[in-house]
């Protein structure tokens, strides 16, 4: 049994793992950079160790330091969270060699799935459907032309070395191919240090559907149903839900079987996600496998009542999965909004600063996984995710209503957030009626900008804003300021509430 786990991450996911450790009575040790000295994950940990400078390379990505620290403090295991070193096969190998358990899959599985072309070959061999295209890197422009003709335009050029939209280009016709091919190669080289490119048929309006799987070291494989994550901006998810509103029981049977087969094909253990694209004709294609805990795992936890992070830790301790497939069923519907420090009115540009207010919503069916609170610093060094707001309802409509209200009651100030944008989507008819695909945000953003800058009528909220601003402006100009209305001697009562 583990006595101490080193959490090699920061922000909300580090806090999520700390909670799981607390429940399992395991000491939660964390690392932090110079920029994170007073971060929430440091304050809520059992032990915290400074690991270096604010740049990720100097701290959260510093493999040698993390492993030697783990040895020094006698950590039994390392939990990588998501991002940073979580899918770095070389790091996992070093952890394995150091005799420390890695809470995740083997370095072998990660290697197999990390190279996108080898993953496609493996899937095709194991009867997992892949998006039509090449399964080997394309070496020349002539090969590219030949393959594109076979597949049929439009096609998508992708980097074999990684995802996240880098090195990815849509090509509509042969005339554009050569230039795009060269651009994709150089982008890929910059992002992943290698320039191999492969080609896929470009699916025009697909939905993104993924299956959560869990496997142990005893050959047990389970799935925890699917999530739909079609709402993305810049190829990054911002709103996810479970189950998918777009599939039926028959489809679910089909894709969960695909997912289990994919996991078996790479001898997978621990938690993982099989990402699929669903075409307009409801064909499913393997996209990639994420070999770590996902940002959006809470929606699955809500509908299955299974604690995925706890399962991860137990599996790494050689325990069997704690439930049988037949034990679990879909209990309702859950939605997650990722709350980012970014400006939805300005091309989703990241926003930095100090959080001045962090008032979180409460109530039935509301969960918030946060990495920040009041006075937290949002720095330029890391991903601008602040927290995740998740709601649960007996059905999709109830989950959406709860999310809309929770967003109204969630106040984050000091940085610009995407809370208004998430709220706008929750109130969008096409979202409510499940008429969306992965192009939804790209297609609708202009409408959002228009609505946020031009109105027909003045609303009560606009009047409220104008009155309060005018009163404060006037007071300031007259050399007065509004004083706190809570008398000093009464303050502890208010603080106590």
């Amino acid at each position, binding site marked *: 049994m583990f006595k101490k786990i080193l959490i090699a991450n920061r922000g909300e996911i580090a806090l999520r793992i700390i909670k799981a450790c607390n429940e399992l009575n395991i000491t939660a040790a964390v690392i932090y950079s110079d920029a994170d000295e007073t971060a929430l994950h440091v304050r809520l940990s059992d032990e915290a160790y400074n690991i270096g400078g604010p740049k990720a390379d100097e701290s959260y990505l510093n493999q040698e330091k993390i492993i030697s620290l783990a040895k020094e403090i006698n950590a039994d295991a390392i939990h990588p969270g998501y991002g940073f070193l979580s899918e770095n096969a070389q790091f996992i190998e070093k952890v394995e060699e150091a005799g420390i358990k890695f809470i995740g899959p083997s370095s072998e599985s990660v290697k197999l799935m990390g190279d996108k072309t080898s993953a496609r070959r493996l899937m095709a061999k194991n009867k997992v459907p892949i998006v039509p295209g090449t399964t080997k890197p394309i070496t020349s422009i002539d090969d590219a032309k030949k393959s594109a003709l076979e597949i049929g335009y439009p096609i998508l050029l992708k980097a074999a070395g990684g995802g996240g939209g880098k090195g990815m280009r849509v090509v509509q016709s042969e005339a554009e191919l050569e230039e795009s091919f060269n651009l994709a190669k150089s982008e890929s080289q910059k992002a992943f240090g290698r320039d191999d490119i492969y080609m896929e048929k470009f699916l025009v309006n697909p939905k993104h559907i993924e299956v959560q799987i869990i496997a142990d070291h005893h050959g047990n494989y389970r799935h925890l149903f699917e999530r739909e994550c079609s709402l993305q901006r810049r190829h990054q998810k911002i709103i996810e839900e479970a189950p998918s509103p777009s599939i039926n029981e028959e489809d679910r049977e089909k894709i969960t079987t695909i997912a289990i087969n994919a996991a078996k094909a790479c001898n997978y253990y621990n938690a993982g996600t099989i990402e699929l694209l669903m075409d307009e004709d409801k064909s499913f294609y393997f996209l990639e496998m994420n070999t770590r805990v996902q940002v959006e795992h809470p929606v699955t936890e809500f509908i299955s009542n299974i604690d995925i992070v706890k399962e991860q830790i137990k599996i790494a301790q050689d325990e069997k999965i704690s439930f049988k497939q037949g034990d679990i069923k879909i209990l309702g519907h859950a939605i997650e909004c990722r709350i980012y420090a970014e400006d939805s009115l300005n091309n989703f540009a990241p926003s930095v600063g100090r959080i*001045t*207010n962090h008032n979180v919503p409460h109530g039935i069916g509301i969960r918030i996984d946060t990495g920040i609170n009041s006075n937290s610093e949002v720095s330029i060094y890391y991903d601008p995710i602040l927290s995740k707001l998740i709601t649960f309802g007996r059905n999709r409509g109830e989950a959406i209503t709860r999310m809309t209200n929770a*967003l*109204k*009651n*969630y*106040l984050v*100030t000091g940085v610009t957030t995407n*809370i*208004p944008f998430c*709220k706008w989507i929750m109130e969008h008819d096409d979202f409510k009626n499940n008429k969306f695909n992965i192009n939804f945000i790209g297609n609708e953003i202009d409408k959002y900008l228009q609505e*946020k*800058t*031009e*109105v027909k009528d*003045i609303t*009560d*909220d*606009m*009047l*409220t*804003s*104008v*009155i*309060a*601003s*005018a*009163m*404060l*402006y*006037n007071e*300031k*100009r*007259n050399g007065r300021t*509004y*004083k*706190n*209305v*809570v008398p000093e001697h009464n303050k502890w009562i208010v603080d106590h509430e």
Partner: protein
Amino acid sequence: MNELYAEIKNKRIEIKIISENEILLDGKKYNISLKKLEKELYQLSFENKQRQLYVKETEMGQFHTVIEGEEHFVRLQTKLEAEANKLLKKSNNSNSNKKVIAPMNGLVVKVNKSIGDKVEIGESLIVLEAMKMENEIKSLAEGTIKAVNCAIGNSVDKGKLLFIIE
């Protein structure tokens, strides 16, 4: 009585603040009360509503508010500033943008430019106090100051020539 103009989204609202508890918006009277809760959090009652909101002045006259997950941006100008801008715009259009005229009666509290200074569009020339409010008069022309026709402490009347820019 304090008169302001507010711009919010594509709307413009004329404001008269009568007292702490009375305000006119486009001529319509509201009974109000604003209470500070903490930091930038306030509670505003108007008519039968009690709303909690975040309000912060981000720049001079520019306010950022958040109410129930929705954010708003309010730009406030005193009547004097608004008229100054209008006048300057007009004179800009009529090709006589080299003369800077007092848009309203007021007391000169600050003169930012003197003869021979270079001036650019948007630069502050003078601060006029009127109705206990300071109003910045900005240049809508660029060039060199040829004449300054006022000094700190002067009371100036509306229409008085303040600067000539060459």
